[in-house]
C-alpha cells in the first residue's frame, strides 16, 4: 500500500515512493549537467582561437562527452523526474510499479556510466551521432542501449500510473493540461526509444563483429528518427513546464483547452518526421521525401509550436488582467515577477526558444536553404537556442520551484538565483547567436582548428569568423557561470537549505488552491475578451520570422548554380 504525505505548499498528496524517485532522478540530472557542462566549457574554450585550450584528441573526446551528457543524460533524467511528478503529484496518484521505476533508474545510471567510461578511455571519440563506418568501443553503444531501456521503463511506469489514477478516480474529468503535455512527451519518447533500438542494437552487434556492415545512409535516416525525436520530447516537456509555471505563479488557465490540447496532438502526429532535417543534402533521398518530411507534412508541428507560443503568454496575460493589471498593452507583463527566477527563467526560455531556436530551425530545415547551413557551426548554434536557452532554462526555472517545494527547504542563495536566469540566458543566448554567425561564414562544426595550421592546403576565414569564435568563448564563460550558480543553488539547497517555515508564511507565496482559481470564470479568456498584448508580441515574432526566412532565400540565390 502506498504511503502519502501532503505537500504543505500546494496541498497535493505525494506518494512517498514517487517522492524519492523524483528527487533521485532530478539530483542525478543536475550532476550530469555539471559534468556535461564542464566538457562544453572546454569545447568552447578550445574553439576560441586565442585560447585553443585542448589538444585535438582531447577536444574530440570532450565534444563527444559533452553531447552525450547534456543532450541526453541531463535532460532525460530531468524528464523522468518531470513525468513522475506529473503522473503522481499532479494527479494525487500512487506510483504504480515503483520497483520498475528503480530498475529504470539503475539502468539509466549504469548505461550513462558505461558510455562515459568508453568515451573517457579515448576509444570512442566518434561524436554523439556515432556515424558508421567509424566504430566506437562496443561499450559505447551498449551503454546507450541500457540507458534507453531504463528510460523506456520510466515511460511504462508513467502510463501505468496515469491509467491506474483514472481507474482509482484520484482526479475528476480529463487529465490536467500539463499532464496531457507530459503524456505527449512520453508517447514521443516511446517512438524515439524504439527508433533508437532499431538502429543502435544492430550497430552494437556490428561493433561486436556479429554484423558485417551498417549502411551509412540507413543509419542516418533511422538514427535521426531517434536523435531528432529525442529533442522533440524536450520541446514538449519544456512547453508543459511553461504551462505549469504559468499556472503555479499566476493561476493561469489555458485560453482554450481545445486549442492547447489540439496543438499537443499535432506534435504526436507530426513531430517525428524531423529526421529529415539532417538528411537534406544526403545522396540517395528524393526531394519529394525531403520536402514532405522536413516540413512535418505542412509545417503542422511548427504550427503547433506557434500556437503554444501564443497561448502560454496569452494565459498569463488573461490571468494578470483578471487581477487588475489591465493598463495598456503590456502592464500585465511589466508587473510580472521578473525577480523570481521561476518566472524569469520560464519567460526567457519562451522568448529565446522562439526567436533563437525556433525561427532558425525552421529556416535551416527548408530543403534548399539547408545547402548553405548544413554541418556548419550554424547547426549547433541553432540547437543551443532550443536545448540550452529553451529546454535547459525551462528546467532550471522549474527547479527553482520544484526543489524548495519537494524538499521543503529555502533556497540557499536567493539573491544569486534572482540573476541566474538572466546570466545563463544571456550567456548561452549569445553562444547560440555567435555560433550561428560563424556558421553563416562557413565555419564548420566539430572542428578543432579553423586556421588549418597543419593542413597541406589552407583556407583563410574572414577575420569576422575568428572574432565571433572569440566572442563565443566569452559568452560561454558567462553562461557557464550562470549554470554554476544554478547547480550551486540546487545542491546547496538540498544539502544545507534551511527548513521551510510551514504555513501561513509559506502559504502566501504558494500557488492558489483550485477552489480560489476555479471561482471567477470557467476558462482562461472568459471575462477578459482578449489578450491584445500577447497578440502584438506574436505579430512581432511573426514579422521577424518572415524577414529572416526570406533573407536566407536571398543568400541562397547568390551562390553557385546547383541542379
Amino acid at each position, binding site marked *: 500500500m502506498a504511503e502519502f504525505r501532503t505537500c504543505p505548499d500546494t496541498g497535493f498528496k505525494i506518494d512517498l515512493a514517487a517522492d524519492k524517485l523524483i528527487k533521485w532522478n532530478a539530483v542525478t540530472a543536475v550532476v550530469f549537467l555539471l559534468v556535461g557542462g564542464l566538457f562544453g566549457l572546454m569545447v568552447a574554450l578550445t574553439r576560441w582561437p586565442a585560447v585553443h585550450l585542448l589538444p*585535438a*584528441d582531447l577536444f*574530440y573526446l570532450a565534444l563527444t562527452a559533452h553531447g552525450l551528457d547534456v543532450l541526453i543524460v541531463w535532460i532525460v533524467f530531468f524528464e523522468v523526474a518531470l513525468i513522475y511528478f506529473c503522473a503522481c503529484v499532479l494527479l494525487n496518484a500512487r506510483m504504480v510499479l515503483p520497483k520498475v521505476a528503480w530498475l529504470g533508474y539503475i539502468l539509466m545510471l549504469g548505461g550513462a556510466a558505461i558510455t562515459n567510461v568508453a568515451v573517457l578511455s579515448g576509444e570512442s571519440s*566518434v561524436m554523439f551521432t556515432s556515424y558508421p563506418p*567509424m566504430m566506437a568501443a562496443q561499450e559505447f553503444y551498449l551503454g546507450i542501449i541500457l540507458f534507453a531501456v531504463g528510460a523506456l521503463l520510466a515511460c511504462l511506469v508513467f502510463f501505468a500510473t496515469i491509467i491506474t489514477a483514472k481507474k482509482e478516480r484520484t482526479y475528476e*474529468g*480529463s*487529465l*490536467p493540461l500539463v499532464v496531457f503535455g507530459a503524456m505527449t512527451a512520453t508517447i514521443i519518447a516511446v517512438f524515439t526509444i524504439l527508433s533508437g533500438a532499431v538502429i543502435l542494437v544492430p550497430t552494437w552487434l556490428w561493433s561486436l563483429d556479429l554484423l558485417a556492415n551498417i549502411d*551509412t*545512409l540507413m543509419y542516418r535516416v533511422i538514427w535521426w528518427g531517434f536523435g531528432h525525436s529525442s529533442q522533440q520530447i524536450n520541446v514538449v516537456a519544456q512547453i508543459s513546464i511553461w*504551462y505549469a509555471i*504559468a499556472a503555479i505563479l499566476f*493561476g*493561469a*488557465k489555458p*485560453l482554450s483547452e*481545445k486549442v492547447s490540447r489540439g496543438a499537443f496532438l499535432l506534435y504526436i502526429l507530426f513531430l517525428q518526421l524531423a529526421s529529415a532535417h539532417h538528411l537534406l*543534402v544526403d*545522396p*540517395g533521398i528524393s526531394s519529394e521525401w525531403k*520536402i514532405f518530411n522536413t516540413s512535418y507534412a505542412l509545417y503542422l508541428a*511548427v504550427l503547433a509550436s*506557434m500556437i503554444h507560443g*501564443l497561448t502560454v503568454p*496569452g494565459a498569463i496575460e488573461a490571468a494578470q488582467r483578471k487581477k487588475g493589471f489591465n493598463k495598456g498593452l503590456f502592464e500585465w507583463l511589466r508587473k510580472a515577477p521578473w525577480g523570481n527566477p521561476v518566472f524569469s527563467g520560464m519567460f526567457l526560455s519562451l522568448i529565446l526558444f522562439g526567436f533563437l531556436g525556433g525561427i532558425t530551425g525552421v529556416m535551416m530545415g*527548408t530543403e*534548399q536553404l539547408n*545547402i*548553405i547551413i*548544413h554541418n*556548419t557551426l550554424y547547426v549547433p548554434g541553432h540547437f543551443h537556442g532550443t536545448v540550452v536557452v529553451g529546454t535547459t532554462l525551462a528546467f532550471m526555472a522549474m527547479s527553482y520551484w520544484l526543489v524548495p517545494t519537494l524538499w521543503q527547504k529555502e533556497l540557499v542563495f536567493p539573491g544569486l538565483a534572482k540573476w541566474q536566469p538572466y546570466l545563463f540566458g544571456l550567456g548561452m543566448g549569445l553562444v547560440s547567436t555567435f555560433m550561428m554567425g560563424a556558421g*553563416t*561564414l*562557413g565555419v*564548420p*562544426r*566539430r*572542428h578543432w*582548428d579553423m586556421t*588549418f595550421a*597543419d*593542413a*597541406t*592546403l*589552407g*583556407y583563410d*576565414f574572414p577575420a569576422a569568423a575568428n572574432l565571433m569564435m572569440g566572442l563565443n568563448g566569452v559568452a560561454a564563460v558567462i553562461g557557464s557561470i550562470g549554470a554554476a550558480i544554478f547547480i550551486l543553488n540546487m545542491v546547496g539547497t538540498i544539502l544545507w537549505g534551511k527548513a521551510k517555515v510551514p504555513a501561513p508564511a509559506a502559504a502566501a507565496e504558494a500557488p492558489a488552491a483550485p477552489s480560489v*482559481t476555479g471561482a471567477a470564470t*470557467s476558462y482562461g*479568456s472568459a471575462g477578459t475578451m482578449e*489578450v*491584445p498584448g500577447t497578440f502584438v508580441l506574436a505579430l512581432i515574432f*511573426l514579422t521577424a*520570422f518572415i524577414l529572416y526566412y526570406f533573407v536566407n*532565400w536571398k543568400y541562397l*540565390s547568390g551562390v*553557385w*548554380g*546547383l541542379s
Partner: protein
Amino acid sequence: MSIFPPTERVWWNQPIEKTEVMWVTIAFVWALVMFFMMPYWHISGEQNLSNEAYKVNPEVYGEKVEAWAEKYTIREEGDTGIPVVRPPAGGDVYMLGRTWEWWPIVELQKGQSYRFHLSSMDWMHGWSLLPENINIQVHPNYEMIFTVKPTSSGEFGVICNEFCGIGHHTMVGKIYVTDK
C-alpha cells in the same frame, strides 16, 4: 488552471477566443507559404540539389577518379604533388574524400555547367565549399551527382565539416574558377 483537470468536464465545446482563432489562421497560412516555397524553388530557383545518386564500391570509384584525373591534369599545385585537373566545360568533374584530403584539385570555368561527382573512400565526410558555403554530406558507397555552375571566379576552399577522425581539421581541398 493548467495543473488541475479542466473545471468543466465538457471542455471541448467551449468557444475559442477570437485572438486564438486569428493567430491559428495566420500561422497556418504562413505554414503553407513555407511549404510551397520548396516546390516553387525547384521550378524557378537556381539552387537545387539533384536526386541522382548511385551505389558504388569505393575502390571502383577511386579508380574512376584517378583515370579521369590523369586524362585532364594540367599542372601540379606548388610542391605538394597534388594534381590540378581541368575538365572540358560541360563535362564530368570528380572529387573524392578520404582521410584527410579532398582529391584532386579542380579547375573550372565560370558560367559553365559541370556534372559533379562526389563520394568517400572511407568515413563519412562533409564537402564544404567556401566562401560560397555550399555543403553536401558525402557517404562512402554512394556516388552523388549534381550539376554545378560557378557564378564567380577565383580560388575556393573545400573543407571537411563532418567529423572524420583525428586529422579531420587538416582535410582541405581546392577549386579554381577561371574567367575563361
